[in-house]
């Protein structure tokens, strides 16, 4: 266990450091500068210079990075140049929503993917082919396009679900669930494709192995042979795929939150990008990376749970 966490830290820390350095160096290349962006069109050059000094923009890059890093280590990611709010606070208000989207979509992808994968592995035939075709299409469909189709059909035409928005579970649990259905389907269904493919391949491999034959020869119930034994052993690579899916979903939420007008980190990232809010986008880059790292850790730990050899 501790070995896994140490190994994880050895990846996580360099990645976080790397992402923060790279975004910092990139943002120092910004044409124009932040002070001008903050002060707006009426400011004089003197005011701009004064603010640059005040914000420390005239310090050398390493000094600025150090200042930022020490702040970041204390949870202070700086202040938005667009609305003056602390970046940490804005992210804090939204991270739960994005997290619930990602977790929900991973669950949708896992459930659909595994169900289809197992079924097609056991049944073969047309169902296997269908999973292949769906997986092929699923990997080619732009998520945002699929989301728009879902909105058009299920929200605007059929009115089964709200077209946009996010309802806090504290406000109304049914409302919350309803508001999540379309976004989770939009994110989860395309992500289920690679999961189904991996599950099917993994199940086919496992079902051909010796121990399955032996289990059957021992008279173990078929249900147990398939779900308790074969599926569990096929699960490790599926978990790896789910980890990749979760990372890709992080990008997907940016688009889905735009389509469904959901107040998550993705929407914040798009706004920050279009308004050139460098501190916010920098903070988001770090937080997104942290989310990826946490997902990876979760995958590692689950992997160890499923696979006794990895526990060593």
């Amino acid at each position, binding site marked *: 266990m501790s070995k896994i966490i140490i190994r994880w830290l050895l*990846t996580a820390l*360099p*990645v976080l450091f*790397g*992402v923060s350095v790279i975004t910092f160096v*990139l*943002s120092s*290349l910004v*044409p124009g500068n932040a002070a001008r962006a903050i002060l707006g069109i009426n400011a004089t050059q003197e005011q701009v210079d004064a603010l640059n000094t005040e914000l420390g923009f005239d310090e050398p890059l390493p000094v600025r990075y150090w200042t930022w890093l020490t702040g970041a280590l204390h949870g202070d990611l700086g202040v938005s140049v667009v609305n003056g709010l602390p970046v940490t606070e804005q992210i804090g208000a939204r991270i739960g929503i994005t997290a619930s989207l990602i977790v929900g979509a991973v669950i949708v992808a896992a459930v659909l993917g595994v169900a289809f994968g197992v079924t097609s*592995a*056991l049944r*073969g035939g047309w169902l296997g082919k269908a999973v292949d075709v769906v997986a092929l*299409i699923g*990997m*080619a*469909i*732009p998520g*945002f*396009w699929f989301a*728009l*189709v879902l*909105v*058009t059909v299920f929200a*605007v035409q059929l009115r089964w679900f709200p077209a946009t928005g996010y309802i806090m579970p504290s406000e109304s649990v049914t409302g919350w669930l309803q508001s999540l259905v379309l976004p989770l389907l939009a994110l989860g269904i395309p992500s289920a494709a690679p999961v189904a493919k991996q599950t099917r391949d993994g*199940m*086919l491999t496992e*079902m*051909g192995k*010796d*121990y399955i034959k*032996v289990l*059957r*020869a*021992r*008279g*173990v119930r*078929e249900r*147990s042979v398939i779900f308790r*034994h074969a599926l569990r*052993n096929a699960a490790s690579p599926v978990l790896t795929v789910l980890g990749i899916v979760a990372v890709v979903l*992080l*990008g997907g939420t*940016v688009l889905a939150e735009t389509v469904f007008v959901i107040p998550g980190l993705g929407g914040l*990232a*798009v706004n*920050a*990008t*279009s308004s*050139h*809010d460098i501190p916010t986008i920098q903070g*988001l*880059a770090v937080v*997104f*990376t942290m*989310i990826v*790292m946490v997902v990876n850790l979760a995958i590692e730990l689950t992997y160890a749970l*499923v*696979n*006794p*050899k990895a526990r060593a």
Partner: protein
Amino acid sequence: MTTTASSRGFLRSLLSKPMSAASLIVLAIIVIATVFAGVLAPYEPDAQDLTAALQGPSSAHWLGTGELGRDVLSRMMYGGRVTLIAALIAGATFILAGVPAGMLAGYRGGRFDQVVLKTADLVFAVPVMIVLLVVLAIFPGNEFAAMAVFGLLGAPGLARVVRSATLGIRNELYVKAAVASGIRDRVIVLRHVLPRVSGTILVQASVFTAGAVLMETGLGFLGLGTQNASWGSLVAEASRNLGIHPWLLIPSGAIIITFIMSVNLLADGVRDTLAERYTPPAAKVRAPRGGAKANAGASATAEATPVAGGADNAGAARASAAADPHALLSVRSLTVTLPIDGVPTDIIRDVSFDIQPGEAMGLVGESGSGKTMTALSILGLLPAGGRITSGSVTVEGTDVATMNKAALRRLRGGRIGWISQDPISSLDPSFTVGWQVAEAVRSHRPMSRRAAWQHALTLLEKVKLPDVERVAKSYPHQLSGGMAQRVGIAAALAADPVLVIADEPTTALDVTVQADILALLRDLQADGLGVLLITHNWGVLADLCDRAAVMYAGQVVETADLRALVHGPEHPYTAALLACDPHQARPGAPLPALDGAVPPPPQWPQGCHFQSRCPFVKDDCRTGAIALADGSDSSRAVRCHHPLTRQEVTL
């Protein structure tokens, strides 16, 4: 082999796959339409017809019009330039950064290799989308910069793939020889390594480029990419007019999906074609062992329900005698077919033998003689498509063919235990061995988990495992082969079966351990357990069995008491097999070996299956089916027109 010739051959075999050919055609159409949009497009991309905005398909506008009456088809064609150039930038960066790094890492190894691998690990954890947004926040609307960064982020992944491919080639003999002969690295890499990995690179890069198209259209949809017509901005336009004119979603989505699907399909085709080129052609005919894997694409091993066959088929000459109702197991004229390359083929033909209570019977023969298949058909566990086409398997007086699924399950493990060849791989790696034994117990006896666990411990003690508490909590990979085999035996005994089938139970074990396991089996047999031992090892057989049946190419060729069999084989195959036994070899003389191999089922000859390898073959051996007939005394049977006499054997 010149490059042109080889690439022509490659293209031909690629195009022979209909999916690949179709994808290639679709891609060609898209690329041509895009590149020559200036000539082919019916309108300029920005040409407006303000009076005809947002209209459906018509003869003037095949895909209808968008905002300001701009022609959707033309914008799609021109927009493809923007999208595809952006994707190409990503793909080019991907290759330029990934290939040299990967080849160098794989070729040189050492520290650089470590750096590349570690970088790939780290970059894998970078959230790509947000990094692209950072780039776009800093360089507003500069999609090309974003796509170049996208390529860079993907490159370490490519480097890793190229590295392992290069490493493989680097270790091949001819490359090693080239290195040894002092040819410069650059030349070796360019002449030998690059051509071999180029296919892999092509596949990776095209899949990546398809991903870049998805990314570009996403950025275009968010309005963060280019502001010119592009596939992404077409979707954005569709999204703006979703309520008024949902039609726009169709062409904009269809072009993206079609393009990406075609690229992915083509990449699959290229991958398959490459695989065909660099692996030697697989033997067309596979031995029935592992038949499940041979058919892995279609379906996994499924339970095959035995079918009672009425009439004997052509090959079965000996009339089906009645099963012995007092025997533990009575196999009569068993014939089993399995589809091989789609053709139903006999893999077991006319097999008969009995096992009495407490008796140990051996089934002996070379690999591919059908021993394991015979055993599997007893349990109704034939590979997918396998069926008993004639003959019967009777266990304790009940014909297995009449059993339903539940009865069959009770038979397996409940009446007949199974001990397999490779003890480690026949245990599920994910569960403790105690749990697995307990599961076998609970599969046949309703009892609590705790009671089943206790019973499992008892069973583990019974198979003479030391420190059963600790062993029970171990995972298979933590056990030695011998211990694992004892666990396997314990699981086989979980429901007190009357018969165990042991399929080469000692083959995978060390010699000293073999003896221990055999001793254990002997003890169990002494307690009244019937044993069917499958082996090709006369020593093992002699250690345990009273009687033996010799199998060759799906048939029992001789049955007899073991002593009689060893000292006076009547079938030439039995004699040959005995001669090969290293235990019988004379010291100092070369180890005798049996020339040739067992013919696979589709190549079984007319007449005697052993004819092609038999030193005593006569003309009458080559026609007609040969029945299993009584041998020199009534306790033995042999399938031969010219059984050997004792003199011939000693000769």
